[in-house]
C-alpha cells in the first residue's frame, strides 16, 4: 500500500515528541548539568562551570563506590533469590488447577500495590517494637531483633521486601512460559522413560530459556531502579548501609543540594543500566515481525 511519507510521522510523531522532550532531553541535560556546580535555590545563572571536576569527584568519592557496591550486591542477591524461587515454585506448582486463576490474582497483588505502601508495611513489620516479625520471634521464644537499626539486618530487610514484591512476578512469567511448552515433546520424553528431573532439566528448562533470560534481565534492570521502597523502609540507613545508587543520587541532589554532583553520579548509573538494557534488547529482538507459529 502506497502511503504518503508524512503518515508515519502523524502516528509516531506525537509520542516521539513527548518522549524526546520529557525523557530524552532531560537525560542529555543531566550530562550537561554534571559539568556545573549548582546548588538548589540559587538561580541557574550563578551556576559555576567546573568541567569534569564533578565527574572525577564522583569517581573518587568513596560514598559513591560504597553505594555502587551496595546496589550491585542488592541486585545480585535479590535477582538470584527471585529467579531461583520463582522458577522452582513454577516447576513445582505448574499444571491445571481450577483455582489457579484465583491464586494468580493474589500473586500479582504485591507488585500492584504502591511501592511506598510496600515500604511502609515492611517498615512496620520490621519495627523493633511493634513489628510483626519481632512479635513472632517473641512467640517462638527468641529475642527481638533491631532489624532496621543494624546494618546487616537492615540490608536483609530491604532484600526481603524486594523478594516479597517480585518473586510472584517471576513465578507468573515462568508459569506462562511453561504453559507454552509443547506437550508433545514432554509426552515423548515420558514415553522414553525420562524421570521428572531429567524431563525438567533436559527438556523443559531449555525450552523456556528464552523466558528465563528475559525475566532475569527485566528483574536485573528493575533492581537498579528500586528507590521508593528503600526510601521509606530505611532511607539508606543505618548510616549509608542500604543507600543504593538511586537513593544516593536523590539524597545528593535534594538533601545535600548538590545538583551538579548528583547529575554526574546519575550518568554513572545510566551507563550501568543502559548496558544491561542493550543486552536485553539484543536478546529479545523487539522488532520481530508477526512470524508466530
Amino acid at each position, binding site marked *: 500500500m502506497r*502511503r504518503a*511519507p508524512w*503518515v508515519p510521522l502523524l*502516528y*509516531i510523531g*506525537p*509520542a516521539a515528541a*513527548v*518522549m524526546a522532550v*520529557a*525523557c530524552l*532531553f*532531560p*537525560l542529555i541535560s543531566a550530562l550537561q548539568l554534571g559539568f556545573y556546580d549548582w546548588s538548589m535555590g540559587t538561580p*541557574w545563572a550563578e551556576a559555576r562551570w567546573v568541567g569534569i571536576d564533578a565527574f572525577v569527584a564522583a569517581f573518587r568519592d568513596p560514598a559513591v563506590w560504597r553505594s555502587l557496591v551496595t546496589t550491585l550486591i542488592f541486585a545480585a542477591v535479590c535477582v538470584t533469590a527471585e529467579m531461583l524461587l520463582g522458577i522452582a*515454585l513454577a516447576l*513445582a*506448582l505448574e499444571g491445571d*488447577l481450577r*483455582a*489457579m486463576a484465583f*491464586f*494468580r*490474582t493474589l*500473586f*500479582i*497483588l*504485591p507488585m*500492584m*500495590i*504502591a*511501592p*511506598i*505502601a*510496600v515500604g*511502609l508495611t515492611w517498615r*512496620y513489620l520490621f519495627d523493633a*517494637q511493634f513489628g*510483626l516479625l519481632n*512479635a513472632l520471634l517473641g512467640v517462638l521464644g527468641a529475642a527481638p531483633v533491631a532489624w532496621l537499626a543494624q546494618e546487616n539486618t537492615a540490608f536483609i530487610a530491604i532484600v526481603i521486601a524486594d523478594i*516479597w514484591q517480585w518473586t510472584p512476578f517471576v513465578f507468573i*512469567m515462568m508459569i*506462562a*512460559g511453561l504453559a507454552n511448552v509443547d506437550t508433545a515433546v514432554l509426552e515423548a520424553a515420558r514415553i522414553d522413560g525420562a524421570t521428572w528431573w531429567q524431563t525438567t532439566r533436559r527438556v523443559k528448562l531449555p525450552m523456556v530459556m*528464552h*523466558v528465563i533470560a528475559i*525475566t532475569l534481565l527485566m528483574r536485573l534492570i528493575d533492581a537498579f531502579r528500586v*528507590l521508593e521502597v528503600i526510601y521509606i523502609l530505611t532511607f539508606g540507613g543505618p548510616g549509608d548501609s542500604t543507600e543504593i*545508587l538511586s*537513593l544516593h*543520587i536523590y539524597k545528593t541532589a*535534594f538533601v545535600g543540594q548538590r*545538583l551538579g554532583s*548528583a547529575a554526574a553520579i546519575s550518568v554513572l548509573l*545510566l551507563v550501568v543500566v543502559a548496558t544491561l*538494557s*542493550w543486552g*536485553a534488547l539484543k536478546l529479545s529482538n*523487539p522488532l520481530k*515481525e508477526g512470524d508466530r507459529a
Partner: protein
Amino acid sequence: MKRHPAAVGAHYGALVVLGLICITPIVVMFATSLKLQTQIFDTGLNLLFAPTLQNYRDVLGEGSFARYLTNSLVVGIVSTVITLALGCMAAYGLARFRFRGRTAVAYTTLLLRTVPLAVLAVPVFMLWSRAGLINSLPGLVLLYVAVNLPFTIWLLYGFVLQVPVEMEEAAAIDGCGPVRVFYRVVLPLIKPGLAAAAIFTFRIAWNEFILALVLTDRATRTLPVAASLYITDIGVDWGKIMALGSLIAIPPLIFTFIAARQIITGLTAGAVKG
C-alpha cells in the same frame, strides 16, 4: 492421567501458603489502619482487637485530603488517557510502517523504559523550574506520559502485530482511508491490550512517589507524597499512615481483582510468545 489426591492436596496447600505470604503484609496494613495509637504501641502478637475508624476519620477530615485526592485522580486519569492515545498510534505506526529511523525509534523507546526515575528527577527538576512547569499538574502529567509511553508502546506493539494485515487491507479495499482503518478495524481488536496498558499506566501515575515528591508543592501534591509526610523525625504516625496507605491501595486492588487476567496477559505477552 489422574493425580494422586495427596499430591493435589499438597499442591493446593503450597498455593495457599504462597497466597497468604502475598497478602499478609497488605492485610497487616489494613489491620493497622484500624488500630488506635495505644493498640499499636501494645507490643506482642495481638491478632484480636476492636477495630476503629478513627484513623480514617482523621485522614479524611484533614482539609487537604480532598485536594490531594483530586490531584492524584486528575494526574492519573489524564496521563492514562494521553498515554493510551499517543501510545496506540505510535505502536501502530511502528508495527505497520517502514520508514527511515524506525529501528532507532524502536530501540530508543525501549531503552527509555529502563531509565531509573531518580536519574530523571534531577534534570527534570532543573528544566521544569526554568520552564515554569514546576509545582504544576500539567508538568507532572507531561512527565508521567513520557515515562509511561515506552512500556505502553511496547505492550501495544505486540497486540497490533497480532491483528492480521489482511483485515486492514480488506477494509482499505472497501474504501476506508488509513485513519479509519486504524480507528475502526485495529483499535477494537486490541482492546485487551488497551485495557492492560490503561491499568498499568494509571497504576504508575497513581502510585508514583519520587517524581511527584520533587515536582509538587502543597497545592499540587498527590496522595503518595502526602502519605510520606506522616514520617517525621519524631516518629511515624502509624495509624494514620496505614490508613492513607490503605486508601491509596484501593484502586490498584480493585483493578487487580477485576482485571487480573488482562494484567497477566499484558505482562507475559512480550516475553513468552517471542
